[in-house]
């Protein structure tokens, strides 16, 4: 199979981190990166919480938090302390073991996603050569945790929220994975480090339709607006985490933001060129790009109202999935049959195709009615 | 301008159709007997030329010796209104026929009158207390209610 060699341009001044850095033993590498990862996730989550609340506030023509620390920068710390000091209430009719286990099952996979995301050339916990497949597999485990939470609460609302969540996540796996496959075809490898290395032009230009589909599907997977009906707090109070309080609630809160950061990191790696960029150190570029993508997610949350569950499913199956298939088809043709069109001609063709497809499809597809005869 | 239909016109029409129904005709209101209420209301609602299809409100007043229930009907097409009244004598168990068959809007308002005044409406699909809780004793809006 002809793999396109996009690495012909080797303007790569970044040093490659050997896979057993810092010591000459794998275990030092593992220890170092484990600590870095956990610290990174927690710090980024705090930064994400701050960006969200402040950004949301400014976009709603009000100030966000600005009292705790300069510019409200210590607000996440205040939130964390508050949540830690709260009483841990477990409802009587709850299934105690499952109730306790659910936040753990929801949170652990999210941190594990970062094991294969490159911060620098080669700087990752494990350079798996099936990187992106590992990510897709792991991120689905978190949904099991959500369902456990909804079920064990003994509350009809929670169950409703958990069911909605399951339906949505399962539906949106398909467009997500298909848009990833488009990127994989263009890059020629499943390993995330390789994908970044082959991005001399960021894949957002080469796969614009893939980017849009991935963004929409990622927002749905992580329950963010406009698909946040799993925790629609004007309908079913808080969905699956209604009955949680104290540290367990903090875990779910963390899960939500950590997943958002994880998806932003994946989007950065797959579409925006990961750690590549001029003069700043590469890991700083990575963080900046991740936060920019996260900011776009906050932006859509502020702006758009929520879709209903059946509209959500219709959007996944009837809108995103066919578009993802067509995108894959076109990418495959470009990579296999017409490799000399890459890269710039393909960019122009793909952007044109994206506009045409999105406009035609949105005319044909209506987020319809949904009244059931009772 | 919503003209309050003068009671004389109504009374003459009603007197023809339902003899004995109209007990009294005030300045702009018509007093009918309790048992003729449904027929008169239906007549007012459905006859061409009258077409009082819009029920503004139902309320009840406690005049110690009787309860007076007041209905106001409006005709949107002709822009006219009429006030219909009935009386229930006796304080122990006053009751009237319900008009929920004719106007769905009477549902909640009749429940409110039952809740606060104690007038029962026969034929009401769901005559329960609406504002006060089940098991509340007494009818607060009556004049002889002491808490």
């Amino acid at each position, binding site marked *: 199979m002809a793999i396109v060699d996009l690495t012909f341009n080797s303007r790569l001044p970044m040093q490659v981190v050997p896979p057993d850095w810092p010591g000459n033993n794998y275990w030092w590498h593992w220890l170092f990166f484990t600590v870095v990862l956990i610290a990174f996730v927690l710090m980024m989550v705090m930064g994400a919480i701050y960006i969200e609340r402040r950004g949301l506030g400014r*976009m709603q*023509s009000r100030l966000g938090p600005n009292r705790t620390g300069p510019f409200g920068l210590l607000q996440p710390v205040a939130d964390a302390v508050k949540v830690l000091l709260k009483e841990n209430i477990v409802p009587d009719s709850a299934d105690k073991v499952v109730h306790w286990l659910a936040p753990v099952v929801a949170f652990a996979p999210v941190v594990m996603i970062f094991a294969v995301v490159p911060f620098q050339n080669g700087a990752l916990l494990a350079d798996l050569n099936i990187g992106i497949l590992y990510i897709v597999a792991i991120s689905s485990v978190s949904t099991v945790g959500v369902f456990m939470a909804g079920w064990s609460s003994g509350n009809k609302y929670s169950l409703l929220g958990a069911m909605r969540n399951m339906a949505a996540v399962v539906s949106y796996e398909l467009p997500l994975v298909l848009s990833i496959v488009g990127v994989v075809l263009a890059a020629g490898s499943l390993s995330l480090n390789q994908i970044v290395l082959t991005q001399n032009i960021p894949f957002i230009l080469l796969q614009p339709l893939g980017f849009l589909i991935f963004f929409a599907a990622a927002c749905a997977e992580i329950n963010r*607006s406009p698909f946040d009906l799993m925790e629609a707090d*004007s309908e079913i109070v808080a969905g699956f985490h209604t009955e949680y309080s104290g540290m367990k609630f903090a875990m779910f809160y963390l899960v939500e933001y950590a997943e958002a950061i994880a998806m932003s990191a994946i989007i950065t790696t797959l579409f925006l060129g990961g750690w590549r960029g001029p003069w700043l150190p590469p890991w700083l570029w990575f963080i900046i790009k991740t936060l920019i993508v996260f900011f776009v997610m906050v932006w859509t949350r502020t702006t758009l109202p929520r879709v209903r569950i059946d509209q959500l499913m219709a959007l996944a199956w009837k809108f995103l999935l066919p578009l993802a298939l067509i995108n894959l088809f076109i990418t495959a043709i470009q990579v296999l049959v017409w490799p000399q069109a890459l890269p710039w001609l393909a960019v122009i063709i793909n952007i044109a195709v994206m506009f045409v497809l999105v406009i035609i499809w949105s005319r044909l597809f209506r987020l319809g009615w949904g*009244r059931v005869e009772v | *301008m919503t003209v309050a239909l003068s009671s004389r016109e109504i009374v003459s029409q009603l007197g023809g159709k339902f003899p004995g129904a109209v007990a009294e005709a005030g300045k702009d209101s018509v007093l009918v007997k309790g048992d003729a209420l449904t027929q008169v209301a239906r007549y007012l609602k459905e006859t061409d030329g009258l077409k009082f299809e819009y029920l*503004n409100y139902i309320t009840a007043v406690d005049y110690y010796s009787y309860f007076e229930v007041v209905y106001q009907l409006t005709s949107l097409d002709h822009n006219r209104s009429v006030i219909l009244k009935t009386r229930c004598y006796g304080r122990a168990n006053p009751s009237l026929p319900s008009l929920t068959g004719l106007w769905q809007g009477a549902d909640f308002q009749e429940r409110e009158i039952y809740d606060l005044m104690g007038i029962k409406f026969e034929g009401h699909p769901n005559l329960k207390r609406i504002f006060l809780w089940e098991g509340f004793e007494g009818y607060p809006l009556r004049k002889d209610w002491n808490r």
Partner: protein
Amino acid sequence: MTTEQLMTLKTEPFVVNIGPVHPSTHGVYRMRVTLDGEVVLDIEPVFGYLHRGIEKLAEERTYTGFIPLTDRLDYMSAMSNNLGYCLAVEKLAGIKVPERAEYLRVIIAELQRIANHCIAVGAMLNDAGAFFTPFLYLFREREKIYDLFEMLCGQRLTYNYMRIGGVGQDIPAEFLPALAKFIQKIRRFISEYEFFLKQNEILLARAKGVGVLPKELAINCGISGPVARASGIKWDLRKADPYSIYDRFEFDIPTGENGDCYDRYRVRIEEMTQSLRIIEQASKQIPGGPIRADVPHLIRPPAGEVYAHIEAPKGELGFYIVSDNSIAPYRCHVRPTSLINLAALRQMVRGWKVADLIIIFGSIDITMGEVDR
């Protein structure tokens, strides 16, 4: 299980309780909803959480002393309640209100209508899920109206401004220029707001065709206000049965065609624009003179009964007062706009999903103070 068995899988409906404390129900309103999966089969509303016995209290207060209680009825648009009550007592006692007071009343009532629709539209969009952003934008405009009202009477929510025979205090000198500036700004704001939301795909999908109220059902239930006008009933008390001096102003009555949530939303936005027209005309024509008729505070209307209604922002608000020539009303009944507007809720909601139930309920725009009194 075979395919046939799966296709006819028996599901059991279950009853869920929504409210009374809930982030989206407009006040303390409780519904027992029978659901089959996500589809709403039936709802049973439970009222009474805010019942304060205002009608009984009226019999113990003087006529003037009841005006603050009317504020608390529909607390989102308190001036309109004041106006309705004062009109009823004036009709009973045959009091003529001076011209300046009439104009002031009209300006204030229309400002109150704009403020009320700000909340109504904002709350409906909040229920649709647009996480407070449109709600806060509209609240910014309502704050400007609060500032104007604070200039008049010092209060921001429960004004107690109208009196029997006129208004309580005269307007300060800076009111009319501030009003003119406000009208300019809010005109631009409403058109900007429309631009954001009118063609928003998700809002159209959530609100168009959802919760249709057919015209015949609306008439049968006695529904009034923007809800009725969105269903196609061209009935506005300011034109059909003009009270105060509304017959001197030119304005249109926006109506909808389908009676769905989207039409109710659009009718309210259009009504805000029409209210601005009335305010402009009134503020140009306002004369000088006294602001209250010469009536005693402890007023004793002659014995009799009266019903007077106004077009409050939520619908037809009426007061039925029976007087026996004493200083307190014998009976004062408030025609509860919101309670009557809820009469058709069951038919509007059946067959839709839980998310639609919330948005339909939000689009009717009720205030529990008026429902429960």
